[in-house]
């Protein structure tokens, strides 16, 4: 596929991610932070997010698996995840975290377990999407093209 085509695909794909709520304006900010002196910034941050989130999700799973769930701890983890997902622009993950936290407050074990599932699901979804998008970008760069800036007319 030639570069132009790849670029168009990337743009369309990225736009769809925004439209579907997987990503929000914060992600745009990250993209704007990337520049020649830091060409892999987005990739780095996103990778960091993945690693960190997976750890958090594991901790959450373990915490909710306890006979006596420590909701404070659970809440702290979720809060953390909320913070990082919002910083990266992973909107749906963030929203799932918000719901999660409210159930934590209620100390509702069933609901929180459901929320955990929800968060995980959203997380894997957005991870998948981001990876696809980043892969597209890499291909473009490898083919000598440049990454087009997304103009979102929200």
């Amino acid at each position, binding site marked *: 596929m030639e570069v132009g085509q790849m670029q168009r695909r990337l743009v369309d794909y990225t736009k769809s991610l925004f439209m579907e709520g997987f990503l929000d304006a*914060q992600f745009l900010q990250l993209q704007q932070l990337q520049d020649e*002196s830091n060409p892999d910034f987005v990739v780095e*941050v996103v990778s960091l997010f993945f*690693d*960190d989130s997976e750890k958090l999700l594991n901790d959450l799973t373990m915490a909710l698996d306890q006979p006596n769930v420590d909701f404070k701890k659970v809440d702290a983890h979720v809060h*953390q995840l909320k913070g990082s997902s919002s910083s990266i622009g992973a909107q749906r993950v963030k929203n799932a975290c918000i719901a999660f936290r409210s159930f934590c407050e209620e100390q509702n074990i069933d609901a929180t377990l459901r929320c955990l599932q929800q968060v995980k699901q959203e997380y894997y979804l957005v991870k998948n999407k981001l990876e696809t998008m980043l892969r597209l970008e890499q291909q473009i760069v490898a083919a000598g093209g440049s990454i087009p800036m997304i103009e979102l007319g929200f």
Partner: protein
Amino acid sequence: MNVSSVNGSMSISSSTSTWKAGDTISDQFPAGLRVLVVDDDPTCLMILEKMLIACLYKVTKCNRAETALSKLRENKNGYDIVLSDVHMPDMDGFKLLEHIGLEMDLPVIMMSADDGKQVVMKGVTHGACDYLIKPVRIEALKNIWQHVVRKRKNEWKEFEQSGSVEEGDRQPKQSDDADYSSSANEGNWKGSKRRKDEEEETDERDDTSTLKKPRVVWSVELHQQFVAAVNQLGIDKAVPKKILELMNVPGLTRENVASHLQKYRLYLRRLSGVSQHQSNLSTIISAQDPTFGSLSSLSGLDLQTLAATGQLPAQSLARLQAAGLGRATAKSGIPITLVDQRNIFSFENPKLRFGEGQQQHMTNKQQANLLHGIPTTMEPKQLVSLRHAAQSVGNMNMQVPPHGAQSSQNNPLLMQMGQQQQQQQQSRGQILVDSTINHAPRLSSSMGQPILSNGMATNVSSRNGIPENIRAPGYSQTPSMLNFPMNHASELPGNCFPLGSTPGVSNLTSKGAFQEDVNSEIKGSGGFMPSYDVFNDLNQHKPQSWELQNVGIAFDSSQHSNSLQGNLDLTQSALGQQGFSSGQMNGHNRSAAVASKAMFSTGDVKELGSAQNVNQHLNNLLVDNTIRVKSERVCDTSPANIFPDHFGQDDLMSALLKQQESVASSENEFDFDGYSMNNIPV
């Protein structure tokens, strides 16, 4: 954005250039600003770092608070500003904030995904100069340099003043008024504090723009010293001069102490209002109106009371009523959580901001604190209402009823107030306000309490049952007005507010608002100063006519002798009262404060001592033109020395007026339903 020259390459030494000197700002400023960012989340940390670099700042990042602290300690001058996350595993962000503030005195910005009001408020009260909600956008980071400049500016001013003031700015003596009024502007109080308090919305701050007058920042330690001195002297005998001597803090002036004492007294009063305060106050209050019963208990510094400013009103009112109006032990179970005393008193952050935004945060303890949220808001309205009231006697719609709690109780008050107002009206235009205030004092008292809570929670709380009603609205507003951390159950200064003695009082008289007698009485009510402060801060104070102020003061005095503790400056109280009373009506603290003040000053003087039943007094007041000073009530103990310097009446007035203006439609106006103020004892 294209960061062609990575800031990170800047060496520390270069960044220490101009910056530290503080007088010259580098041309590249704010480029090169040395930022230390602390966040346990690696994703966020990385993003922040990148953003800060994009802003051309020099960034150092850590993911643990301990690391950050050690970095700061190793290199005290190596950083200009700190950005810290709130939730961190090894140390609470607020704790770190405190450490930094105390040890290094750097501006600290808090960040969190948590945007809950409490958390943000906590940031403010702990001294954060800003609070950013995650996800942090780069635009938000672009302006963080303002906090550095602001702080520097304050420090320079401090040096210029040549006083070694506590980290904040120093307040020149004379310009107390001016200071207050100016500081009131735009949240000056916010800025002047060492730790910039941040309002919930980070952009609240439009303050500190001009710190013209440095203010003394009542840090925790300073406050503790103050409290120790006061306790040593005995709250009744604590006069600014002696306190100053005992504290032995270089650079601190008697005026600073005086105004702080005023606030403190109100705070105490507020506390005791809820819980009985047996000591001196009780005597005064006891006489009063049962509703104010609680007031008498001012003595007990009930932080809770204060803390629950919002709740206080309702509860206190309930209590008072239950108590049977007699000064029953006010200890209403106000579920006030002990607010961080330190913070409270220091009002670094006008937590009490009623309705957030209502009042400008009165970061400065000295000033604004008094009128935290509630009072302040009330004040303007109250002031407005006061004005109206003044105009038409009948207008006194004391908001009392609104709070409904004690409408019945209020009624008498209202009546009285109405009457008083009338009388007062004649004598002093504003007196109407006074009358309302008188009536309102109860209201205001109650209201005032909340309002006063700014600093003088004590006063407010003590106020009385009626005011409770009024206060209710007010209290809710002032969230943490009760900042007086002082948990001193000490005798409420309110006991006898030296209304008479306070110069303010005398001023009032001259104004004509209060009859001579009143003045003396007012003294008792002196406690209201806080409202005064509040107003100042609020900026909204409009220079109301003295009458209004007097009214407030009179009112207060009459009502809560307790709360008045020291009416040090009638004017202040007046203002506060005025605003208070008006505020109360509105449920705004401010106005209440004003109203209360006004009320206090005017007729209350008589009542002062007796926060006791407003009703009773009202009648009395009404009858007597001169505020009848129930001897028992008015205890002007201290007198005059109480805050002689306080806020100039002018300031108060202006603040009040401003408030009034701003409050254009104060809902509260004192509505004395059907009460005609015929004889407003003036």
